[in-house]
């Protein structure tokens, strides 16, 4: 065995810290060999993605760890899961599916995970700090943590994330290390007018464009105005991590360790320079839709990643601004969110607006992991680049990408209608 272990690692591997920790450490050490890491290192926080998919084996894995007495060693949050744990009955979820999902959730909570159940863990409880070493799952959150917060994580998949949480250790390699965080590819925005970035949808389009260009390299984005909201950065990261495998994007002037272009590259010469134009952004935007203008609309999904309080506020404002008083009756309007954000909404006047319009709010989960989109749904509209990317393949629908305002207006009209962007 080539991985060098600390005394504490060895105690876990030998089973002296319980059978659960032994299994977690054994998986970590074997993965360290795959990564060709020489040793393990500490992390001080984890976010679990492996709690998201409902499968028999995933459930058995979680229950095996929990019943062997495994407990998380560092503060650990949970990604969205396969079920709205409180309101699943309202969404017509089969009993058998729900029973499995409830058992899986219980196993993760028994191991000491915080029941955040959200794919936007950076907008809620336990937001990591600059430079903090963490083990995060969920592609959009990984990219956001590295690029916006300046925390340090590799792309941790199902089920190494919980092993890292239980042991507090990860293979020492990749983006945890300074030398691997230098920029490798330069993406330069040219001739994009400043006003463009005020349009809802522009950051998702940019993310969708960046994903394939960045490959699995550390990309540097130059030329985006630095006054950008958390929600816009969320949209950018989610879209880029769907169309690509990027885990760190230095956004010059935004990323804490990339205040300047020089700092982003730290002596590296870009191995590739790509210019991104307004026409490229327009093409990326068009590529996010498979449905056409005027198509009858069945379902609107907002909140991929999970809706924040400020996005709820924006939605309420848009709804209040409509001359109509209701959506077209054929359209269902769903917002996906986490408990933390929604608990703020419930204590505000936004709630009355949502109720008056019959907006359905689903918590803890998303349409890709819980069976809530029926076969009658043919056309889905969203303002999320990530949702638009996965919906045709995963949900078998045609998808229309548009701004939040477009989504609201289309739901009122009962058909896809978008402002030119």
């Amino acid at each position: 065995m080539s991985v060098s272990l600390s005394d504490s690692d060895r105690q876990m591997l030998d089973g002296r810290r319980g059978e659960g920790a032994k299994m977690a450490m054994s998986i970590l050490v074997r993965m360290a060999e795959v990564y060709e890491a020489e040793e393990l290192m500490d992390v001080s926080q984890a976010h679990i993605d492996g709690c998201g998919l409902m499968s028999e084996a995933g459930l058995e894995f979680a229950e095996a760890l929990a019943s062997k007495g495994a407990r998380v060693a560092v503060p650990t949050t949970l990604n969205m899961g396969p079920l709205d744990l409180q309101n699943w009955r309202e969404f017509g979820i089969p009993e058998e599916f729900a029973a499995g999902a409830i058992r899986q959730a219980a196993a993760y909570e028994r191991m000491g995970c915080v029941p955040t159940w959200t794919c936007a863990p950076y907008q809620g409880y336990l937001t990591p700090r600059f430079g903090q070493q963490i083990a995060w799952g969920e592609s959009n959150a990984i990219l956001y943590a590295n690029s916006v917060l300046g925390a340090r994580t590799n792309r941790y998949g199902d089920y190494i994330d919980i092993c890292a949480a239980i042991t507090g250790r990860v293979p020492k390699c990749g983006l945890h290390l300074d030398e691997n965080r230098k920029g490798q590819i330069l993406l330069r925005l040219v001739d994009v007018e400043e006003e463009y970035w005020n349009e809802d949808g522009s950051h998702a389009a940019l993310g969708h464009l960046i994903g394939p260009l960045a490959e699995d390299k550390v990309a540097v984005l130059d030329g985006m105005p630095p006054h950008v909201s958390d929600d816009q950065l969320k949209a950018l990261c989610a879209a880029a991590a769907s169309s690509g495998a990027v885990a760190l994007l230095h956004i010059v002037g935004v990323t804490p360790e990339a205040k300047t272009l020089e700092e982003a590259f730290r002596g590296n010469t870009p191995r590739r320079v790509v210019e991104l134009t307004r026409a490229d952004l327009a093409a990326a935007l068009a590529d996010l839709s498979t449905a056409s203008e005027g198509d009858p609309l069945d379902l609107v999904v907002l909140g991929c990643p999970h809706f924040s309080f400020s996005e709820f506020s924006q939605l309420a404002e848009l709804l209040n601004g409509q001359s109509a008083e209701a959506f077209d009756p054929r359209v269902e309007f769903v917002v996906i969110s986490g408990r933390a954000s929604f608990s703020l909404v419930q204590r505000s006047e936004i709630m009355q607006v949502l109720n008056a319009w019959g907006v359905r709010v689903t918590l803890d989960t998303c349409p890709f992991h819980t069976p809530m989109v029926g076969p009658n749904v043919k056309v889905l509209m969203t303002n999320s680049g990530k949702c638009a990317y996965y919906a045709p393949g995963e949900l078998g629908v045609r998808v229309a990408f548009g701004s939040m305002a477009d989504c609201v207006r289309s739901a009122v009209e009962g058909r896809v209608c978008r402002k030119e962007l």
Partner: protein
Amino acid sequence: MRKHLNGRPIVRGRAEGIAMVSRQPLGFWGGYSPTSGQIIDQRHERCGEFAAGKVFVFPRGKGSSTGSAILLQSIKAGCAPAAIINSNTDPILALGSIVADELYGKSVPIVVLGEEAFSTIEEGDRLTVDENGQVQVDRPGCK
């Protein structure tokens, strides 16, 4: 004809089967059915075909990290490939197989071959993978 190729054992184990060869990467989430072993990614050249029980030879995994969950479930369900041979190391697939080994005591051996050796394997070859990452290739009809 018989030859031996030396690779890196990513997940150690012994297996044999008929080669199913693709030159395209495959993401297992949305690409592989864990209940049938069928390729289901509609953009993939082998979509609709079954890799269960075969030695699945393709350059690398891609896409979602949920791929490890899909491989784990397919191993449990008996619908996984007999072995996987790649030309690039994919930690996501390795993880699925390692977790299956820890949980069920069964795994899919994964071997990574250099580009040149990788490209010599043909559809229909009978492959035997051993614990050290050596791949024995038997090609029917050739001396």
